[in-house]
């Protein structure tokens, strides 16, 4: 059988490979304005103008064929046919940044020397124009001896020509000419690249250097850190302030739904399942969609503008003091959204010990799934008052929890680097991309994908654990008129009462003990679980967050609430985090270590918090 030709997208980091991949295949791979967005290979299908199918591969960016980190290794392995389960590509599209030919052509020259059929996508010609650079693509084609097509991946410009020329290139796929092989001398290639870049530059006017002007502020020793802290602070305040109205809408929707089902169904098991289980549980989680989207929105915008590497630059000094580098800041920041992509993103870290340390501390970054837990506890037990104009106490506590996670991560890194992950410190050397205006479409698409994932989780894993918990909480039923609490009499209640012995020393009550177990499946379930516990106990109440809030006020003390928050700052994350850690570290040793150290940390921190709060008379 004749397979569709395999074509690989290869080039320097941040050249626009994934943007081109999306434009050509209609896929939605993540695009971002910093080097190291793509860390795995992704395959997609496209059709040539004559209808022939082509299998396209999006690869991690690399500077050369000598990989210095695990993501670059993927690219090299694919190109030399060493990737397990992958055939050698039939052709290469090398993507180069037109405004940085001096550098990007070096890798192109190395790729041409590989001898595979190749075509150059001269991408970002719009940025080159913005910088006052006029290039001659035909001259470049002559100099390189391979087809060159100017493109603007994000505006789908030049794609038809690219497909046409690609059609010509893959037509003669079976007459591969063996090339001179991999050229390793970077300096020779670099000089040749500069010569070519000069030869194909028609004119260059003084550029409007927006990037430099912005960097004068963003990288400044004083205004830089102030800006970074300010941005982080605004982000967390916004998560609270901007979400109020949409949360209200979702709450009323849930209450309406609960009311309607309650009225429509006769009193009984089905009604209890739907109203107390599904709506009280899943509803309590879905309410947080606006906050999660706001948080993701901020991170997506930071990634799209190019600010991420500036933040890494500012943080390098601090990271170095705990044995890491600024490079680790990017995976750690994306762990605020979710630790799973964060841990994947550590593939861009070259030093193995450095990378391992980053993986081990990533779960300490407060992921968005913990946000519902924090919010609901804070909303119930921390007074809603303004400390300064525009700065609320609740927002401040939330910010403090995030900061605590960060401090915990730094201390953990410091200790780990001196004990289990001892080793040479890796350096920090990173290219800073030009600033770009975030593209609304990309940001909205990213938010949409996130909302989809969140709702899918709510509809599957969260729903399932909630229903199971509801069943365990509802049966067996106490004898009529016995006066025993329904929850205490149920299977789950008995388990919870048993577990409480373990967690009572750190101030946790039965409801918390019950919530901790399903929270391992997904963090948000803690909220759903508590919602369900109270709903089963008081079926008369309307479902919704307001009820949980009132119940929390009635059943929890402030020290318990603070200890619970502290537990969630440090406790090991969900099953998916453990699974991805196993995959990225090739074994069970490190995930087992991670889970144990985080459990101990969480237990001790929650205990100290509880007893200090009690001693302070809170």
């Amino acid at each position, binding site marked *: 059988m004749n397979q569709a030709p395999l074509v690989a997208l290869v080039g320097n980091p941040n050249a626009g490979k994934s943007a081109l991949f999306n434009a050509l295949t209609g896929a939605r791979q993540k695009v971002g304005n910093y080097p190291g967005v793509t860390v795995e290979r992704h395959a997609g299908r496209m059709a040539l103008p004559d209808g022939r199918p082509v299998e396209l591969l999006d690869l991690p960016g690399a*500077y*050369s064929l*000598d990989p*210095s980190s695990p993501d670059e290794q993927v690219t090299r392995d694919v190109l030399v046919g060493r990737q397990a389960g992958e055939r050698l590509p039939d052709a290469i599209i090398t993507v180069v940044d037109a*405004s*940085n030919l*001096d*550098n990007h052509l*070096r890798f192109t020259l190395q790729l041409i020397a590989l001898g595979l059929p190749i075509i150059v996508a001269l991408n970002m010609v719009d940025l080159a124009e913005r910088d006052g650079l006029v290039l001659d693509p035909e001259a470049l084609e002559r100099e390189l001896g391979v087809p060159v097509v100017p493109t603007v991946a994000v505006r789908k410009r030049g794609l038809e020509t690219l497909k046409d020329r690609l059609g010509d290139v893959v037509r003669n796929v079976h007459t591969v000419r063996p090339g001179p092989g991999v050229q390793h001398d*970077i*300096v020779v290639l*670099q*000089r040749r690249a*500069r010569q070519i870049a000069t030869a194909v530059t028609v004119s260059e006017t003084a550029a409007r250097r927006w*990037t*430099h002007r912005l*960097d*004068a502020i963003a*990288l*400044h*020793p004083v205004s*830089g*850190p102030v800006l970074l802290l300010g941005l982080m602070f605004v982000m967390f305040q916004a998560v609270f302030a901007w979400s109020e109205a949409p949360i209200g809408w979702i709450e009323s929707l849930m209450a309406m739904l609960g009311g309607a089902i309650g009225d429509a169904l006769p009193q009984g098991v089905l009604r209890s399942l739907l109203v107390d289980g599904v709506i009280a549980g899943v509803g309590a989680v879905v309410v947080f969609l606006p906050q999660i989207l706001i948080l993701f929105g901020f991170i997506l915008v930071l990634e799209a503008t190019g600010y991420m*590497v500036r933040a*890494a*630059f*500012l*943080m*390098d*000094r*601090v990271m170095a003091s705990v044995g890491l580098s*600024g490079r680790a800041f990017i995976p750690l920041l994306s762990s605020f959204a979710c630790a799973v992509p964060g841990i994947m993103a550590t593939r861009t870290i*070259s030093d193995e010990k450095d990378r391992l340390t980053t993986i081990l501390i990533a779960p300490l970054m407060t992921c968005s799934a913990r946000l519902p837990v924090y919010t609901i506890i804070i909303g119930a037990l921390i007074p809603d008052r303004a400390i300064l104009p525009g700065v609320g106490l609740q927002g401040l506590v939330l910010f403090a929890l995030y900061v605590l996670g960060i401090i915990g991560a730094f201390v953990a890194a410091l200790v780990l680097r001196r004990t289990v992950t001892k080793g040479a410190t*890796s*350096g*920090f*050397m*990173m*290219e*800073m991309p*030009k600033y770009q205006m975030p593209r609304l479409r990309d940001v909205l698409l990213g938010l949409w994908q996130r909302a989809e994932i969140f709702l899918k989780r709510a509809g599957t894993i969260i729903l399932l654990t909630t229903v199971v918990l509801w069943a365990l909480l509802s049966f067996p039923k106490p004898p009529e008129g016995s006066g025993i609490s329904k929850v205490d009499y149920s299977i789950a209640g008995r388990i919870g009462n048993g577990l409480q012995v373990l967690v009572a020393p750190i101030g946790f009550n039965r409801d918390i003990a019950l919530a901790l177990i399903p929270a391992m499946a997904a963090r948000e379930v803690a909220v759903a679980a508590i919602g369900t516990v109270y709903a089963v106990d008081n079926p008369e109440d309307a479902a919704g967050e307001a009820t949980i809030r009132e119940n929390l006020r009635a059943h929890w003390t402030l020290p318990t609430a603070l200890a619970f928050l502290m537990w969630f700052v440090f406790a090991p994350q969900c099953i998916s985090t453990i699974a991805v850690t196993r995959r990225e570290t090739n074994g069970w040793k490190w995930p087992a270590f991670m889970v144990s150290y985080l459990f101990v940390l969480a237990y001790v921190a929650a205990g100290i918090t509880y007893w200090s709060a009690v001693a302070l008379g809170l």
Partner: protein
Amino acid sequence: MTRSMNIAAAIPHPIRLAQLPRLKPGTVAGVDWHALSEPEGRRLRELGLDEGVEVEMLHHSGFLGRGPVACRIGRMTVALRRHVAAAIHVSPNP
């Protein structure tokens, strides 16, 4: 005599990139490759650093005066640690 001295004054001595004043472009005169680790040297070359390339210091210190430096190498802005910037010799452009 006076004339030749003037020429000598016009071609400044190479200094280290770490000492290059901000926003005064210079040209790379050489690099102490042995002062850098092998991966550092390779990555530096991959970022386009080479003799004859124009460099410019954008920010001396990332954080409280002791962090990395941000500089322009050719057309790229690059973040480097200080000891790397100290290994690069630069002739300030006249």
